[in-house]
């Protein structure tokens, strides 16, 4: 009887955890996939795979979330770290290499919005790993204080880096050099 009650309460805890996870998944999917896209050059299929990996990690670490940080900061940390970790896999490596050799034709002096976005993804690929995370979070509109908390760098260091990356990224999109 005691055993039955125990297994029933375990079941209830499991259901509550699943419902909580479902809620987190629905409300954070968009922002996770947008950051993931930045890591795979805008490739939607790869971004979806990465997003799935991120939510697997979210589920596996859900019980260790202590609310010392906000849920959003916690999810962004897992997203960036999972992207770093998954990058060792062949499918993500080879995709990054393909775009590293991409050269835009010179006659495209006035690129359309879509082409500019494509170029932006390519320029982001050229950034070192931490700078890539910083600019993706900045593009998401996160306050610098939160970016500092996610990356583990000081607020001042983030401010300086963002200024530099913004300039480099803008130059790269306009002139194809970083």
């Amino acid at each position, binding site marked *: 009887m005691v055993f039955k009650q125990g297994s029933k309460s375990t079941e209830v805890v499991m259901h509550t955890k699943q419902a909580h996870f479902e809620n987190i*998944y629905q409300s954070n*999917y*968009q922002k996770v996939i947008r950051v993931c896209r930045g890591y795979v050059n805008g490739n939607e299929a790869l971004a979806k795979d990465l997003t799935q990996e991120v939510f*697997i990690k979210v589920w596996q670490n859900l019980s260790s979330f202590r609310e010392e940080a906000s849920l959003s900061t916690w999810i962004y*940390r897992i997203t960036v*770290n999972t992207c*770093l*970790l998954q990058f060792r896999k062949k499918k993500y*490596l080879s995709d990054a290499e393909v775009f590293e050799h991409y050269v835009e034709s010179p006659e495209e002096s006035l690129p359309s919005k879509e082409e500019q976005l494509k170029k932006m993804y390519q320029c982001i690929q050229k950034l070192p790993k*931490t700078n890539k995370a910083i600019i993706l979070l900045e593009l998401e509109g996160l306050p610098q204080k939160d970016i500092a908390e996610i990356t583990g760098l000081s607020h001042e260091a983030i401010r300086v880096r963002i200024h530099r990356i913004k300039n480099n990224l803008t130059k790269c999109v306009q002139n194809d050099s970083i």
Partner: protein
Amino acid sequence: MTAFEDLKSQWGNQNQSEPPVDGAKQILKQIASVRNKQRITNGVLAVTGSILIAFFFYVTAYKFQSVMIGLLLMIGALVFRIGLEYSSIRALNTMNVSASVESFKNEIMSYYKRRKKVHFILTPIIILVYCIGFVMLLPAFKESLSAGFYNYIIISGIITLFVLCLFMAREIKKELLVLKGLMD
């Protein structure tokens, strides 16, 4: 609006991807299937180990010293290598993904530095031990097998070793590339 603000607004206006219907349930299913695969892998490793031990006794290897040492070296090298890979996978899976990006990056970098030591120090030793074990078995093979089969064992052994080395070299190159990417 500055050039960067313009880029930022374009970034924000990208097409939105809706979360898949039942996406969360699919993830939970995938986690369960990964757990099952891990159980199967553990089972396969346990069965392989048991078969190797059974084979050792089946051929009464313990009665012939050189055969016994040769087989033990080969089995030992193989088991040690599997153990190393297993602990590496465990180390990757237990990394704290909710740590700050910088400390997580340092964690991955030290993981890859440890892997580098495994690749450049332990792996050559393991291959050498495996080869010594194989060579120690050859006189016993020559004695008990036909000339054709003996030659087949030598040639296939060399080819297998060569293919294995090529495969490992490719994996090592890939891991070093990841380490280089993390260090920039």
